[in-house]
């Protein structure tokens, strides 16, 4: 039998992980990693932080040096944008006409920023997803006095923190009544908002934007709720949409993400999907979910890459994320429930805290913490264990959460 040909589309951490895990699974497979950007896979988490504040080049933060791909015999192609997926012929075609025949295909195409309508094309409005976006945003920030950020999600707030570190004036406009509504409980969101206000960022929740106009070399944001606001520069960070164009054109089942099973298999034979672009079943979720965090992208990419190379491997995980803002670290574990039966805040009295969201049986569903990373690591295990917990112990700062997690694991 000839060597299995595995083609991976996408040079983010999911695609990178898929390639490396495929190699570990099948020493004989032929592996191609097609990266749309003109760069080897790099750490995207720096784009909203160190690239802006310190001007480091994303090229300095590669996920692996070039020789690692040679050692692993991964044929990595940069600037390789896939134009067509011919699933019947088991072939992908890049824009330059190169055809890649595959036995297994992994789609790790990621996501792209959601865009705001009603924006004057002349207005200095930016989005942030790829290295050139971050480099351009830094260049413009250095020449700007005032930045407006549309969207108080993790990316918007990280950029706001970076701009404050550069001593730029910052306004953050958010449609929801609180910041971080998608990933935080009220207490954690309020703590983050206080942090930003203390550092001089102006946060405007409940803000409804009508349009963004070009104005005096900058932008004028017209709102229905907060009047008009001027800025030299606008970053729009209102979430991402999965990049499913290839999959849809090829007739794969797509529903805000490419639908996959626990092995990453799509509805088409021999085609897998991993990372931000995939919608997958998870033990902690009643319905298939799409996740947008680094750790999932890495771990799911690796699991699916191994599966594509023939491993009998299923994926399950309790999601976790982190976000660095100023000199603080926000972390979360689990899926934020719409309506937790009970919310407990463990207040350490030093500005740090952890919030626990429980169901009606006192089982932990999610945890969010500010500067309490170990609590999140413990909470992640407790969420996976799905055992009823003692609310008093959870709320008590004197009881290390890791100890509770280890007790739960051994009982």
């Amino acid at each position: 039998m000839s060597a299995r040909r595995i083609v991976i589309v996408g040079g983010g951490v999911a695609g990178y992980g898929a390639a490396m895990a495929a190699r570990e699974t099948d020493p004989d497979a032929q592996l191609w990693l097609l990266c749309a950007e003109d760069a080897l896979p790099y750490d995207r988490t720096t784009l909203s932080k160190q690239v802006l504040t310190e001007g480091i080049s994303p090229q300095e933060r590669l996920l692996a040096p070039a020789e690692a791909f040679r050692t692993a015999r991964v044929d990595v192609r940069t600037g390789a944008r896939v134009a067509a997926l011919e699933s019947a012929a088991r072939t992908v075609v890049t824009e330059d006409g190169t055809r890649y025949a595959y036995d297994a295909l992994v789609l790790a195409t990621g996501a792209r920023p959601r865009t705001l309508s009603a924006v004057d094309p002349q207005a200095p409005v930016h989005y942030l997803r790829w290295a050139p976006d971050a480099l351009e945003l830094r260049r413009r920030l250095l020449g700007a006095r005032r930045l407006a950020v549309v969207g108080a999600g993790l990316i918007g707030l990280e950029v706001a923190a970076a701009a404050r570190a550069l001593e730029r004036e910052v306004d953050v406009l958010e449609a929801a009544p609180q910041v971080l509504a998608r990933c935080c409980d009220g207490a954690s969101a309020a703590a983050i908002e206080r942090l930003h206000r203390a550092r001089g960022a102006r946060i405007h929740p409940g803000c409804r934007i009508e349009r963004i106009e070009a104005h005096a070399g900058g932008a004028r944001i017209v709102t229905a709720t907060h009047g008009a606001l001027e800025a030299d520069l606008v970053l729009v960070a209102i979430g991402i949409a999965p990049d499913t164009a290839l999959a849809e054109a090829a007739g794969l089942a797509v529903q805000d993400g490419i639908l996959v099973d626990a092995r990453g298999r799509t509805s088409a034979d021999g085609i897998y999907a991993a990372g931000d672009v995939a919608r997958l079943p998870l033990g902690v979720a009643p319905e298939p979910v799409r996740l947008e965090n680094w750790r999932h992208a890495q771990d799911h990419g690796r699991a699916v890459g191994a599966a594509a190379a023939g491993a009998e491997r299923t994926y399950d995980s309790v999601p976790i994320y982190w976000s660095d803002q100023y000199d603080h670290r926000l972390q979360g574990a689990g899926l934020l429930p719409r309506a937790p039966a009970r919310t407990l805040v463990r207040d350490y009295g030093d500005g740090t805290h952890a919030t626990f969201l429980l169901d009606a049986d006192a089982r932990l569903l999610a945890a969010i913490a500010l500067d309490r990373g170990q609590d999140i690591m413990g909470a992640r295990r407790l969420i996976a264990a799905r055992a009823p917990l003692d609310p008093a112990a959870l709320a008590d700062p004197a009881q290390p959460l890791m100890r509770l997690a280890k007790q739960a694991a051994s009982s």
Partner: protein
Amino acid sequence: MSTGGTDTVVLARADDLPEGEVLRAVVNGKAIAVYNVGGTFYASDDVCNHGQASLSEGYLDGEEIECPLHGGRFNVRTGAPCAPPVTRPIKTYRVALRDGLVVLADPAELDAS
């Protein structure tokens, strides 16, 4: 900075570190993660050599510490990398137990990088 050959460098009180747990100590300005694996103490650099993560905030699973951000793992006894994305060993320190204190067996190891 020299730590001197005969000075005792205390990392932790043994009583403060139950089995299966990890804590962070700062000695001579350097952050060290101290582990208790089944009653035996180990120590390594606290800052993960892959990213901006503190290993003492990670999950100690037997002899392996899992990085709280990226999920990389090191064997705390040998320093060997055990799971991606970490690829290089973490620096470890030999420790000794003296009068209920976990101390560096050889403080000169702090100076060697």
